[in-house]
């Protein structure tokens, strides 16, 4: 058993599962947005806002933003533990990474909720 304090989950399975689940949700969300764009003939700002005012779309977007941040966290944490060998650099990177993900979540929810 190898312990890691800056990883997202407490077990490897946990991280792995979140990475897969978030990938699926992000893919579905991207397809959904693509479908909306493709099937809305004259897409302007009002239609775009009206789309995001539907509470289901809003909820889906919020969930996707949260899962996307977790996806970034897991993925970039793995990259940093593979390639950043000096402990100091790795710690700074991971600290910034965690902060970045939290900011995305808070900011993303703020934007989506204000629609």
């Amino acid at each position, binding site marked *: *058993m*190898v312990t890691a304090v800056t990883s997202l*989950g407490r*077990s*490897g*399975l946990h*991280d792995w599962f979140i990475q897969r689940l978030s990938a699926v949700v992000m893919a579905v969300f991207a397809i959904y947005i693509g479908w909306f764009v493709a099937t809305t003939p004259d897409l302007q700002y009002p239609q775009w806002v009206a789309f995001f005012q539907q509470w289901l779309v809003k909820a889906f977007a919020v969930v996707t933003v949260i899962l996307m941040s977790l996806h970034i966290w897991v993925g970039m944490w*793995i990259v940093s*533990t593979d*390639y950043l060998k000096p402990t100091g650099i790795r710690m700074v990177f991971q600290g910034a990474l965690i902060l970045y993900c939290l900011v995305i979540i808070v900011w993303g929810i703020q934007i989506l909720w204000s629609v």
Partner: protein
Amino acid sequence: MKFSIYRYNPETDSRPSMQEYELDIPAGSDMMLLEALMLLKDKDPTLTFRRACREGICGSDGMNINGKNGLACVTPVSELGKKAVIRPLPGLPVVRDLVVDMTQFYRQYEKVKPYLQNRNEPPARERLQSPEERAKLDGLYECILCACCSTSCPSFWWNPDKFVGPAGLLQAYRFLADSRDTETEQRLSDLDDAYSVFRCRGIMNCVSVCPKGLNPTKAIGHIRSMLLAKGV
């Protein structure tokens, strides 16, 4: 035929270098690379490499042959083209020439407790297995620990102290799959961290080099499924 061989003697050389050799090999010869290396060693006794069984059983002559890990004793020189570039297994410290320090590799092997554990009272003669149960060990028990797989795995290069690597994980699964072993739970919890198993990214370098034709990626997939079944 031309050979370009990695040479390094830490006692006298400040850095490794490639040395060129020539060897006359009769046309149509079915000589293996190991034999060619032994002929070269007759000419230059300082050339250093490991070997023992010379038939793909002991696992001691793993090396990097024209960029791909393999056993010299089962690699025909006729497959190597006009020039063979021979280097030690990548990612492990070089002791001398083609001899690497396998400590990290064995340490990972040791971690998976590669022996049968059974807490039940031993029967009078032996613990029996049905032919079906025994068949589950096929493709796992044949590993000769040559390290060709683990030293071709980028995840093992970057974290040889934390990622168990394909060879160790193949053995981990060999005991998870054994009907006579009672410590499945404990074995799985020991592996459920961010590195030991999950650092495998499924690149399958291990599968492409294994001289015994084994499939560590598949075994790793089975371990992952077992962890998943336990964890959800």
